[in-house]
């Protein structure tokens, strides 16, 4: 269960202060598929990174499973993100000099308690699930955009997180590839019970969610 209470996030911009989020309060049930929509600058990505423990709100609280997220220290927050959250981003953010398999293994390296031995088989299995078994040794630049996004999803699943935060995951993809990615996310939600929170511009993508949040000027509509 995620509870956001009266969260405001203020940015200092060149023309003075800007409210990215303005007194937002929401609750998200575990296992939900929430889509966040809104125009450019509406605050949807700010909401996502605030939920993901990446951006401390100016005021208000973010509570996940009864724990105040921003009471954690920086390294505790990093461990929390590593174990509990998978990020899928519009620009994929794969490491360019590592192949697909190595990219998927990165979050596992940051969780040393799981040991070194199981990393490779798990990464191979995740890439197989994404239909990339034969592409595991390819560098990101040798993969198509759709394949890169599937590698990013495999990476997000590396430590079997409870929640996936997706920021415009289909923003760079053509409609067919976008559908493919959205289907993967839906399956993860329905079959594995992962909580999915997805920011999108696309009405088609937004329709995949079980819950929908619409933002304008940092406020929920």
């Amino acid at each position: 269960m995620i509870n956001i209470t009266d969260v405001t996030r203020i940015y200092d911009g060149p023309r003075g202060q800007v409210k990215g989020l303005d007194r937002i309060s929401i609750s998200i049930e575990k296992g939900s598929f929430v889509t966040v929509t809104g125009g450019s600058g509406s605050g949807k990505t700010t909401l996502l990174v605030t939920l993901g423990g990446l951006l401390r709100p100016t005021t208000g609280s973010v509570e996940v499973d009864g724990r105040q997220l921003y009471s954690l220290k920086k390294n505790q927050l990093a461990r929390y993100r590593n174990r509990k959250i998978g990020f899928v981003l519009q620009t994929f953010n794969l490491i360019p000099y590592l192949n697909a398999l190595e990219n998927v293994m990165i979050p596992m390296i940051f969780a040393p308690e799981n040991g070194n031995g199981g990393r490779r088989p798990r990464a191979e299995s995740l890439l197989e699930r994404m239909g990339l078994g034969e592409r595991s040794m390819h560098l990101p630049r040798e993969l198509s955009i759709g394949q890169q996004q599937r590698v990013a999803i495999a990476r997000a699943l590396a430590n079997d997180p409870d929640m996936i935060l997706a920021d415009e995951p289909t923003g760079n993809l053509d409609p067919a590839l976008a559908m493919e990615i959205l289907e993967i996310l839906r399956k993860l939600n329905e079959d594995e019970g992962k909580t999915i929170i997805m920011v999108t511009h696309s009405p088609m993508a937004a329709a995949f969610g079980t819950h929908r949040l619409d933002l304008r000027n940092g406020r929920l509509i």
Partner: protein
Amino acid sequence: MKLNTIIWKELFLRKSQLVSALLAVTLGIAVIVGIQTVAVVSENAVKIKMENLGANILVLPQAASVDDYYAADIDAPTFPEEYVERILNSALNGVDNLSPKLTRRIDAGSSNVILTGILPSEELAAKPYWSISGLSGKDTGHVHTGPSGIDPKYLDPRLQRTAIETLNRDDVLVGKVAAERLNLTKGGTLTLRDHVFNVSGILPETGTVDDNRVFAHLHTVQGILGIGSQISCIEIMGCCSAISDGLLGNLRNILPDTRITTIGQIVSTQIETNRLMEQISLIFLVIILIVGAISIGNFMWANVEERRREIGAMIAIGATQSVIYRLFMTKALVLGAVGGFLGYIIGTAGAMILGPRLAGLAVEPMAVYLFFAVLIAVLISLTGSFIPTFRASRLEPSFIMQEV
């Protein structure tokens, strides 16, 4: 896969930047290693020259002059032989060799000879305090003059002198001129004040006062002259910068009732050159430390800038600050170690090639500098990388998102 895989793969990604960063450290270390290697070899060369030229410090009785030392008059003042032990027991820096002598001009039948009592090096070395005092340092083998232990190949062979290691109580060594004057040959005998000596050797001509002298065991000479346990001088071979760094003053403190003097400024120019090289080396070291650290720091700063999205993504997916430090500081460690190693190789090779041509010195590699070269280069690299790494660890990962 481990974290090191990421470090290793990224290291070779930007080869030109890597080479330019390495070059600054490598060349810097090479210059230091080169200068230091030549400086040490030059110091050793001075030492060998001093040994071959003979003693450069004289300890004489208070009332004596250097003229007395050469004239060897019958009534020239003396002082106790025990003074030798005082020097040996004092652990002074820079005393390489020493030789107590008692010299007197005495009758030898129809003419005079200058009889000089000496202690063969074997007897000095055999004393327990000699080996534990460390006075002779690494050169315990050549208590007197001689080239053992140090390759003298670049020395003028005419200047080389041979150590007198053993000398029986009844043996004498005769200088070339004295031997001709007294008509002595090896294996013959020489009677001095009723004491019959065996001539165990005729010394080769040196062109010095030694050519006119007869050398016998110090204690035998003391017995003949009836001045037991007295000597007329101690010749000391002090080495290198220690002479001007207080060796003379320290000797005066130990032996207050003596006259201590140096025999000319034999190799003072070379000592000054060595000092200059030491100072240049120090200046270079400081410059290299600064330039190397800036160069590596600049490379790392650019590296952090180029990898902002990558670092941000890593932090977002769970990299802690210590992981980011490991990513960059391990890279810096590798750069430093490789730069130090290459710098050592280039510096040593440069010294070996240029040493003989520029300074007339045969330069051998000094393995100990490999350790210091790598250590300094690693410290430079780590220092230069610290601020960029600190900055990387503080990156806010939220900027990797599409919009914020």
